């Protein structure tokens, strides 16, 4: 979720404002109370939805995944109908029985989704779909093309002392998964199969790697704008990033490039989920169907700087902004997604019958300890 961190801080300083209910109001169609990332319910596509469905949309913007979880549980869980949950929140909502399973056959565009997004493990449990995938983005390796030579091809660039003091990575416990992904390829003896399912040995190896990396780091960035500043001012020349920063820096004519290195990358995938206690299931399905259509998918992708899950959105993206389809990898082949490991909440259940994996609380504690 690109803007999550950026807004997390802002949310502590300012009260999150509810999006004013857009113009049209038809009593007979019902209402939808949505919890969304800021920008996910923009009037450009919400207004037409209200007109065509007769459902009125009210949005509440959340500043973090945890705020989303808290909001979904407020008022006994019946206050909000839907949530645009990221992969690090969705499993918590599913196992907390806050959201209900949905039937993808009622979503006409579901068949046009990239194969990786129809039943991803962060919203599909035991074959049941707890929501419909929306948009995604990779966590890329960003570097300054003038300083970093030869061009990097591997994540090892941020673990080697070559660019000591000029490296930056996100200030987020989920970053442990990036270290695990690196070890998955470089230390096969650890037998890591999923960077989010780590037993204590694997977890220790990942956090040890991060501890060794720490002296190389200039700053753990908390806001996307921090990383942009670091690259602009020459304080960092290489680091882990989102496409959003790359695009912003390129727009400023900064000499940067981002890649998905040979080991692959982690990524985020957002899902519209439906509350287990909603009284507006009809409107909820209408919204799921509408938000999955190619035109709306393309509009949101361009507005927000992320990639639609509907592969038919590609030509519309190019029409809205030339070359944007390829820029955001919206037309990437299935092979591309095999190397992207989408965020999911680390839980004790390892997925192989064993329950000895480190859960998210442990990740968070380890991250606090890493930063010291």
């Amino acid at each position, binding site marked *: 979720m690109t803007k999550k961190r950026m807004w*997390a*801080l802002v949310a*502590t300083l300012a009260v999150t404002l509810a999006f004013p209910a857009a113009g049209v109001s038809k009593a007979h169609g019902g209402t939808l109370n949505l919890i969304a990332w800021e920008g996910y319910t923009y009037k450009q596509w919400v207004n037409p939805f209200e007109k065509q469905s007769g459902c009125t949309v009210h949005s509440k913007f959340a500043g*973090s995944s*945890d*705020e989303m*979880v*808290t909001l979904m*549980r407020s008022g006994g869980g019946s206050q909000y109908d839907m949530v645009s949950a990221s992969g690090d929140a969705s499993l*918590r909502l599913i*196992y*907390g029985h806050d959201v209900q399973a949905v039937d993808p056959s009622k979503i006409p565009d579901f068949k046009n989704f990239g194969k990786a997004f129809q039943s991803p493990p962060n919203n599909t449990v035991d074959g049941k779909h707890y929501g419909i995938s929306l948009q995604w983005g990779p966590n890329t390796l960003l570097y300054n093309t003038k300083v970093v030579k030869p061009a990097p091809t591997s994540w090892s660039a941020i673990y080697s002392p070559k660019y000591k*003091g000029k490296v930056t990575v996100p*200030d*987020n*416990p989920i970053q442990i998964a990036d270290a695990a992904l690196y070890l998955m390829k470089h230390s096969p003896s650890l037998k890591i199969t999923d960077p989010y399912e780590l037993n204590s040995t694997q977890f220790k190896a990942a956090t040890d790697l991060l501890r060794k990396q*720490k002296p190389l*780091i*200039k*700053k*753990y960035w*908390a806001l996307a704008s*921090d990383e942009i*500043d670091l690259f602009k*001012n*020459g*304080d960092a020349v290489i680091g882990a990033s989102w496409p959003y920063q790359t695009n912003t820096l390129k727009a400023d004519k900064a000499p940067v490039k981002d890649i998905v290195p040979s080991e692959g990358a982690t990524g985020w995938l957002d899902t519209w989920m439906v509350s287990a206690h909603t009284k507006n299931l009809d409107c909820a399905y209408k919204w799921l169907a509408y938000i999955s259509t190619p035109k709306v998918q393309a509009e949101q992708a361009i507005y927000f700087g992320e990639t639609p899950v509907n592969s038919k959105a590609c030509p519309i993206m190019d029409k809205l902004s030339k070359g944007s389809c390829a820029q955001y990898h919206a037309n990437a082949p299935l092979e591309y997604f095999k190397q992207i490991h989408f965020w999911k909440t680390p*839980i*004790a259940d390892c997925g192989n019958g064993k329950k000895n994996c480190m*859960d*998210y*609380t442990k990740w*968070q*504690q380890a*991250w*606090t*300890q890493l*930063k*010291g």
Partner: protein
Amino acid sequence: MAAGLDPAQGLEEGRRGARRRLGGALWRRRWLKGFSLLAPPVLAFLVVYVAALVALFISSFWTVDPFTSETIHHWTLDNFRELWHGATYHRVALRTVEIAALVTLTDALIAFPFAYFMARVASRRTRAVLFVLVLLPLWASYLARVYAWRLILNSDGILNWSLHKAGLPSANVAYTNTAMWIVFSYIWLPFMILPVYASLERIPHSYIEASRDLGAKGFRTLRTVILPLALPGVVAGSIFTFSLTLGDYITPVLIGGTSSQFIGNVVYDAVNQSSNLPFGAAFAVVPVLVMGVYLVLARRLGAFDAL
């Protein structure tokens, strides 16, 4: 409201009688006047201020279900036990207190000569200008000032540019604890200057003349007359600089480096990343205790004598 109840005030003709009776009742029963004056602020203080602290303290004895993030209302000392045994939390608390103390010392050293000049040397006009200069930064947003420092300190920033021009090697100050110390000292300086100025201004000139008449040279007068009399002001200012630094969490995020976490940052992460409000509350008790000890010491040094 208090002024309107005072019988000495000019009153409207029609309401005169009733007001006079009320005023008389308040005059006869002094406690009633005191009570009606104090009740609203005391009530607000109890509800808004103390209640929040009590809620914080109580929730620090609860825990959170690690997976569903729901609060378990079961009394336990687990949070405090974890804080007591966790080396990381000791380091974070110690770092917070150390930097707060360092910032306070720096501000006191800068503020004293500045306030002395303002109070006892500068002309009336210069003093007004200096006052404006001291207060001017407070008109700009805290965030804007912190970001401005980032522009000064970063590797292509004004500091390194100036050093290069002077033929000196560049300083790697950006995103370190040194940077935090500089920025905190800058941001809280006005809160030290003003109380020190107030205490210096109050020293009667006759004391200094008497000291001179008795043969004390400049430094001795400063050490034995001015400093002891200004100390309560310095201590009062230090309460501001110390507590403001102690509770901050934004500057460490924006200016700090890889090992710059403050107590506030750990609390923020506990609440925002793992929804562990009880643990955050438990850690937040630490600065409250530190401030309690500090205030007791400040009282011993006479910081509140002038109140």
